[in-house]
Structures are given as C-alpha cells and as structure tokens.
C-alpha cells in the first residue's frame, strides 16, 4: 500500500548514533571517564602501595626543618628554615638562571643570526662556525667545560684578581660590593619610577605626533637623560644616602658584599651560548622568509640598511621567529636542571636531590616538580602567544 506523501522536502530521520554531534559528545564522555578512572586507579594504587611499603606520604614534610645549607639564595634562608622554604630557594634559582639565560641567549642569537646573513665572508663564516660548534656538542659537556674552565682559569682566594679595589674575582666566585641603603634612599627610587613613567608617556606622545605630522622626535636621548638625570638629582638632593660594603679577605675567603658563584656563571654562560646557536638559526630563517622585494622596496624609499632591517625586515620576520623561539625558551628553562651536575642549587638539585633523599617522598616531590616545570612552561608559552598575537601582521 502506498501512502501519499505530503509535498515538500523529505525529512531525513537520523538515528542518534548517526548524528555526528551526539557521537562526538559520546566519545568525549567515554574518553573523559577512562582518563579520570585511570587517574583515580593510579592514585589509589600508589597510596595503597606506599602505605603497604611503610613509606611516609603527604605534604607535611614541607613544614619541617630542612637542616642543610644552600650555597646561594635569593630569599632569606638558613639551616633552620623549612623544606618549603628550601623549595622556594631552588625554584627562584631556577627562575633566575632561566630568565637571565633567555635574555642573553636572545641577544647573542639575534646577533649571530644576523651575522650569518652578512655579506662579509669572514663574519658570516664565523657565525656559521659558532652555530655548528655549539649546537652539536651535548649541553652537559659544555656545562662541564665552562665550569672547569672557569674554575681552572681563576686564582685561589688569596691571589684574587682585584678590579677597582672593590670587585674581587677568584675560583669561589665574583665578589661585588653590596649597596647599603640609608635613610632617604626611597626618594631616589621614586625619582626612577617617575622617570620611567615620563619616558613611557613621552614615547606615546612622540609616536602620536609622528603619525599625525610625520615629524620625528629623538626619544632615545631624552629617555636616557631622564632615566639617569632624575635619580642622580635625587641622590644629590638627599646627599648620597648610600654606602658600599666592600668584600674583605678573612681566613679562607672573602666575606661581605655580594657573591656570584662560579656554578651560576658556568651554567648561565653554557645555557646562553648553547641556546643562542639555535636561536641564530631561527632568526636567520625568519629573516630569509621575508621576500627580497621588501628590501628592494625599502631601499627604493630611501631607507638605509639599518632602518631597513629594523623597520621593514625584522617586524615581518618576527612572525616567523616567535613561535619556534618560544620552544627554545622552554628548552633553556628545562635544560637548567642539568645544573645539578655542577652544584648550582636550582629546583632539581635542591628538591629532587637533597630533599627527596632526606624525606624519601619521591612521588610527592616528583609530582610537585613536574607541576612546577609545567607551570613555568605554560607561562612562557602564554606570554609568547600573547606577544605573537601582538606582533602578527595586522591586515589592513
């Protein structure tokens, strides 16, 4: 029997399991359940195993006394401090070397990358040699090389090199005078803050004016003047409320002042030099990705080599450079954990080395450490993504 269909488009009936939306929700739910139950299984299993083996668990250890010394710390720390504080010391030391390393690696990397493109045969080949040497030798070897090179090259404390009667260099580190702030010094800080704000405002104003009228303004000179002049003026007005504590040789070594330990120097140098060799290649690739027509157009407009690079090539190259650059920053940060080999007390050395050994709480400590590296990496990624979005070409 044939039933008369009403006119109009035929309604397609899809069964729920044929509906792509329903399907995708279903599979995602299944995946989520699997992942969560696997996680819970691991967690439960771990807890049960540790309990059975009589291994201490939990995070209470973070509050107990550490009892060991750490050679360099950015925050107040002594043997009486807690493991939690020792952890913070290690973390800050990691951040310090990562941050300074990223800055140095970027500067060296950009420099070498551009040098590789130089028309000067010697310069471009020297840059090539740099890249090939440093990116092909394992980082750990480079760290050892710099460390022992630094240690062997420098004299013992008694024979320290002395610069300007206040800076001493020996195989225990670089000893610098440390500043002692007296009353009234806060005014100098305020002067600096005001100078920075003034520079920012001036730069904006200068940009606006250039956009509107085409007139250029020498922001650089005025900025330098402001940044140096204002604090200097404040210093004079307050009568130099600042004195220096000069390191002094007492017994085995120098006391007083600030010391930069050789472990930091070796790690910082090797991380920077190693990572710079990768950054150089990234920069070169980025610059070469900008078509030659841009250079020609820029030359046709009468821009010389410097401004062409700065105003035309680099802004476009940055789009290509930034994403792989982020990976290098992440690598550098993670590679800083190799420091444990040369006694620079960063997170891995202090936390997964000494503290893990004293408390035996491997699972907790490794979890925290992984979470910390993950957070640092995600923060760097987030920052670089933001920067990348800012630098991306605005299509007009």
């Amino acid at each position, binding site marked *: 029997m044939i039933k008369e269909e009403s006119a109009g488009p035929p309604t397609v009936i899809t069964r729920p399991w044929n509906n792509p939306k329903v399907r995708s929700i279903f599979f995602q739910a299944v995946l989520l359940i699997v992942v969560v139950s696997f996680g819970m299984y691991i967690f439960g299993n771990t807890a049960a195993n540790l309990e059975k083996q009589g291994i201490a668990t939990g995070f209470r250890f973070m509050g107990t006394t550490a009892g060991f010394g750490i050679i360099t710390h950015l925050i107040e720390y002594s043997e009486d401090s807690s493991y939690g504080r020792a952890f913070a010391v290690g973390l800050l030391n990691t951040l310090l070397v990562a941050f300074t390393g990223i800055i140095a690696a970027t500067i060296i990397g950009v420099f070498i990358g551009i040098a590789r493109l130089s028309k000067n045969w010697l310069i471009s080949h020297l840059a090539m040699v740099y890249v090939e040497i440093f990116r092909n030798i394992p980082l750990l070897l480079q760290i050892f090389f710099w460390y022992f090179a630094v240690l062997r090259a420098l004299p013992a404390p008694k024979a320290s090199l002395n610069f300007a009667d206040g800076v001493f260099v020996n195989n225990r580190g670089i000893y610098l005078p440390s500043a002692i702030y007296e009353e009234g010094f806060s005014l100098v800080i305020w002067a600096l803050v005001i100078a920075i704000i003034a520079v920012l405002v001036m730069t904006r104003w200068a940009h606006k004016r250039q956009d509107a009228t085409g007139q250029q303004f020498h922001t650089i000179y005025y900025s330098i003047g402001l940044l140096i002049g204002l604090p200097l003026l404040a210093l004079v007005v307050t009568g130099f409320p600042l004195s220096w504590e000069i390191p002094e040789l007492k017994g085995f070594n120098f006391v007083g002042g600030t010391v930069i330990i050789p472990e930091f120097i070796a790690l910082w140098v090797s991380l920077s030099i190693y990572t710079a060799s990768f950054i150089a290649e990234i920069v070169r690739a980025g610059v070469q990705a900008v078509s030659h027509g841009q250079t020609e157009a820029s030359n046709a407009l009468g821009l010389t080599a410097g401004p062409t690079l700065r105003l035309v090539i680099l802004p476009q190259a940055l789009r290509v450079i930034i994403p792989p650059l982020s990976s290098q920053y992440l690598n550098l940060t993670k590679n800083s954990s190799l420091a444990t080999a040369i006694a620079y007390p960063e997170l891995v050395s202090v936390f997964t080395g000494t503290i893990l050994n004293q408390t035996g709480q*491997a699972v907790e400590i490794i979890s925290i450490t992984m979470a910390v590296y993950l957070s640092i990496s995600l923060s760097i990624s987030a920052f670089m993504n933001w920067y990348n979005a800012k630098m991306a070409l605005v299509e007009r």
Partner: protein
Amino acid sequence: MNKITSTVMMASLLAISASTSAATLDDVIGKGFVQCGVSQGLPGFSQFDDKGNWSGVDVDICRAMAAAIFNDSEAVKYTPLSAKERFTALQSGEIDVLSRNTTWTATRDTALGLNFAGVNYYDGQGFLVRKDLGVNDALELGGAAVCTQTGTTTELNVSDYFRANNLEYTIVAYEKADEVVAAYDAGRCDVYTTDQSGLYAQRTKLKDPSAHKVLPNVISKEPLGPVVRQGDDQWFNVTRWSLFCMINAEEMGVTSKNIKSKMGGDPATKRLLGEEGSFGENLGVSPTWCANIVSQVGNYGESFARNLSVPPLNISRGVNELWSKGGIQYAPPIR
C-alpha cells in the same frame, strides 16, 4: 632534564607497579640472580675494573647472598647508583638489595620504608684538606668552602657540626662523586667531606693524593650496611644472616682456605657449615649456605683485608675489629 628522567621513571614505577612483590626471595630464585645496588665506583667498597668485574666489601655482601641462594657468588647483577638515586631504586623494586656505603639512620629505617640488615662497616664523617692549607683540626675550618655529594648524610652532619661550633661555612653539593672529586681538585673547595673511609678511597682519585690529608676529627656516626625494603622478613633474614655468617666465620677461624679442614669439627663450626641443624632450610636457602659463602667469598676478615687493608687504601680494622679482639663487630650465634 636527563638528570631527572631516571628519578621520574623510578618514581612512576613506584606509583604504578602493581606492588613490589613481598616475596623477594622467590622472585630472585625465579630470575636466577640478585640485583644489587652499588656505588658508581668507590674504591674498596664497590668498584669495577676495566673488565667490568665488581669488587669491594659492599659487593661481597651481594656475592655472599648469591652464594647462599644459588651456590654461585657470581649470580649477581649490579646497578651503580648515585647517592640520591639509591633509595628510590630500592623502594621501586629496581634492585633487590642496596649495598652502597649507606648509613643506617632513623629516617631511612622508618619514613623511607626500608630496613637495615646489619652493619658491615662502622664509619664516621671526616674532612680531607690540602696539606698546604696548614689546617690540623676541623675547628680551624671557619669560613671554609666544603664540597660534598647531594643526598647524603654528610650534607646534614656538616651543617650541624659547623653550626654547633659557631663556624661559618659554604656548602657546595654535587650530584656525582666524580664531580665532587674534580671540583675539589680544581680548588673550588677548601675541604672535602664524607665518610672517612670514603675520603681515603676518593683521595686515591686526586691528581696528587700525597698533597692531601684527612683531619683527625670524626664528626658523626656512620654505620654502613646493606638495606632492603620493609615488609619482607624472609629476604631481610637472608641479607642479615649472609653478613652474620661472614662475621661468625671469622670469629671461629674458618676461612676460604681452611674450610675443608674445618669440616666435621666442633659443634658450633658444624652448625656454621650446615653439617648440623636446619639453618639454611629455615632461611629458605641451601643447607650449606654459610659454607658456600665462606668458600666462595671468604669470611668478614678476609673480605676486609682483600679490599680495604691493601694499598693504596691501607685502612686498618679499627673499630671494625671483632668484639673478641677489641672492636665492635659482633654477630649473634648460629644456633
């Protein structure tokens, strides 16, 4: 990152391993060898020659266990471990026994879930300095830079000692022993501190060993001995009695050389050598377990003499002499 991957792997092993079996002895018999955690090379205690053969008093404990279990002192596989890796390796079941100049402390015995089976070397922490430093006593070390290894008792002892005596110091802690030696040799530190036996052993690795001396001060108690996981009494017993067998054999004058002639002797010796009683059976190993140990590895005194009392170490027995000869090495009787 490579540095922490191994630790991470062990920690995850610890986390997911269905459970390290409680019956280590059965596992060991099943696989046919003892997996023994040792140092990465400490002369006299656990070191390997250019053919890859391991020797030392710590190694002898593992060989003794293999002799007791398999009647074959060579049925051992070694895992070299740095100070900071060793406990995780044991907890996670990567090794069956840790015999790596490890100090018996309260935390390790309790919170770490481990058990110390005995003491095969009574030690104490000391200091090594350059002779030309002109220091004769540790109390003259105020302000010194001190090199040591991460994850050891020495890190804590040295801070206790310097603080108790109101002395300033800076500690430089490396992950691996070889790096401590190299850094100390390069002048990074005024002092190298670790167990005194370790100082004598590591001194042999310096460029000019004779330019350095060990100070007389002993600042801590470092009873070193083999360690196993908690909760496996049978395996604990095998470990502990392998050591006791060696000490008892020395006390009874039974050596690898004269063991044949000692057979069928007095009752105590008969028990020691498995000719009487069921001690091996009770332990879960062969009846002649102790005879196997003594004939293949030697007694405690022989092991000590072979590994520690020879040049360049020349370590004397000191407190490690038998109790009957004025020392403190003492083993409960086999009876």
